[in-house]
């Protein structure tokens, strides 16, 4: 049976939203292939999410219950997923293109002797073969890639695939796993995570970015706006701001930073260089605030305000607070 398997990533004990995106997409692919949709999750505590996955179309959930999988490790997780895949033989395997997915998917693929159609924003089937739509050059062009070997592995960009409910059984099967420790890997010594619960840039629904026009490292105005929008919003930056040391590297949007696709991108004091536009040009709606009416960012913005961001952002925060309080 040509089945589809998705990987449900657990972050800080919670199932990530991308798992529902993968499930919804996986359901469609499985229906077209006439197979079932299965999910795999690591960690005993992940069993509690089986019913949630079932809501989005998952027929069967494999729970890898193993002490070796308590902390994420590329080698052990890849071994565990490879074991499930070799045993259950899905035709298609989908993972999220998250920080973990980027690390795990190629290692897993190599163990199975295949490559990953990475960072896809859409999928199709042709003669039962998976085709992934993969943006290249940070989104300056799109390419369609076809898998030539089995299993067909792809990662999907977070926040792009549509989530649709479609209740299925979501029956749980526990799978024992013990890592082959003869394969060398690293040991995690320390995990220093931001516990503020802020979403990662690549998964944020709303991004408020500040560039050189911020004039310094005080991003309070933008942080305030993000707080008004709520937990799905976060603050980004241009490379100029990162290079100036105002923001962390992890906050950089663009061709050598992160490619983002939020519903709403608000660029404050950012000119709109080709490298910056490459990273955020696929955002659904773009707002630009810049005092230079000729700034290239305005050619891509759905809504542009020509003016001083220090005068405009506080007014927007006031408006947003009122509107969103309703």
């Amino acid at each position, binding site marked *: 049976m040509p089945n589809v398997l998705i990987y449900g990533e657990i972050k800080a004990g919670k199932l990530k939203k991308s798992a529902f995106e993968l499930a919804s997409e996986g359901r469609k692919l499985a229906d077209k292939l006439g197979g079932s949709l299965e999910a795999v999750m690591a960690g005993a505590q992940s069993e509690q999410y089986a019913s949630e996955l079932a809501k989005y179309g998952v027929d069967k959930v494999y729970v890898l219950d193993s002490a070796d999988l308590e902390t994420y490790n590329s080698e052990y997780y890849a071994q565990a997923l490879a074991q499930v895949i070799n045993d259950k033989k899905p035709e298609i395997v989908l993972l999220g293109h998250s920080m973990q997915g980027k690390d795990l998917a190629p290692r897993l693929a190599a163990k199975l002797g295949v490559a990953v159609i990475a960072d896809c924003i859409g999928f199709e089937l042709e003669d039962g073969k998976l085709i992934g739509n993969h943006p290249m050059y940070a989104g300056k062009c799109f390419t369609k890639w076809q898998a030539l070997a089995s299993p067909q592995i792809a990662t999907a960009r977070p926040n792009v695939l549509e989530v649709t409910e479609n209740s299925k059984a979501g029956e749980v099967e526990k799978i024992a796993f013990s890592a082959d420790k003869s394969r*060398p890997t690293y040991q995690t010594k320390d*995990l220093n995570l931001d516990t503020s619960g802020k979403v990662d840039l690549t998964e944020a629904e709303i991004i408020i970015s500040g560039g050189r026009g911020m004039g310094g490292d005080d991003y309070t105005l933008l942080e305030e706006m993000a707080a008004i929008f709520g937990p799905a919003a976060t603050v980004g930056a241009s490379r100029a701001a990162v290079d100036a040391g105002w923001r962390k590297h992890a906050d950089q949007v663009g061709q050598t930073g992160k490619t983002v696709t939020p519903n709403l991108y608000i660029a404050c004091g950012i000119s709109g260089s080709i*490298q910056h536009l490459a990273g955020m040009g696929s955002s659904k709606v773009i707002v630009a605030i810049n005092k230079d009416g000729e700034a290239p960012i305005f050619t891509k*913005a759905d809504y542009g305000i020509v*003016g001083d961001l220090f005068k405009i952002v506080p*007014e927007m925060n006031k408006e947003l607070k009122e509107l969103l309080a309703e």
Partner: protein
Amino acid sequence: MKSVVCLKQVPDTETQIKVNAEGTGIATDGVKYVINPYDEFSVEEALRMKEKKKAGDVTIVAIGPSRATEAIRTALAMGADKGVHIDDEQVNNADPYTVAQTLAAAIKGLEYDVIFCGHRAIDDDFGESGAILAELLGLPQVTLVSKIEVSDDKKSAVAERDVEGGKETVEVSLPCVFTSQKGLNEPRYASLPGIMKAKKKPIDKKTLADLGVTPDPKIKPLSFSMPSERTAGKKFEGLEPAEAARTVVQALRNEAKII
């Protein structure tokens, strides 16, 4: 410290990418090529390791057409010692599996304590060759590294890597494959004496046949297309800040229906 740096030559980030008439790739006329920015971090880190340990060498391994020689020369001018250039039609535009397989074959004959890849090439944006290479060589991978500290006996390293929402510190035995992330270092520029010296440094040319690799692609590109061109929307100029703010916030709610 002996390092191998896998280096790809890619179009400059300034390039206005256009798809060729056949839709089979990008139009290459007038494109300026540079070292993949993440691979530049790798070169710099390898040089710093060699300088710190006051011993060893840095080997550049690049797959690509003849123009890729320029990228290798630039790395040699930065201070790397020698290059391996695999120039073969069958792999110059290959899928990441074939690329990793070819890199693995080229690296097998070399001596090394660490191998560097970029965490992704900014042309194909796959970000997978490093991890596949590590698996093919049976080495650990430490991806997205922004800091590396090698132990005195060169048998292990402590590295910091980016994870979602923070950093992870890991300890790894060497050899291993690191994939470089921004923040690792500030790459140096090639000096004039460096450029002169680079001209005499060896670049070993190889084909797939030399390496005994038979390509067996696992994924293939079907078509290339341009994203729908974004056009300028509404621009508000000359409004009072409060009025401009209200107009746009209302439009986001009522017109774009996004908030």
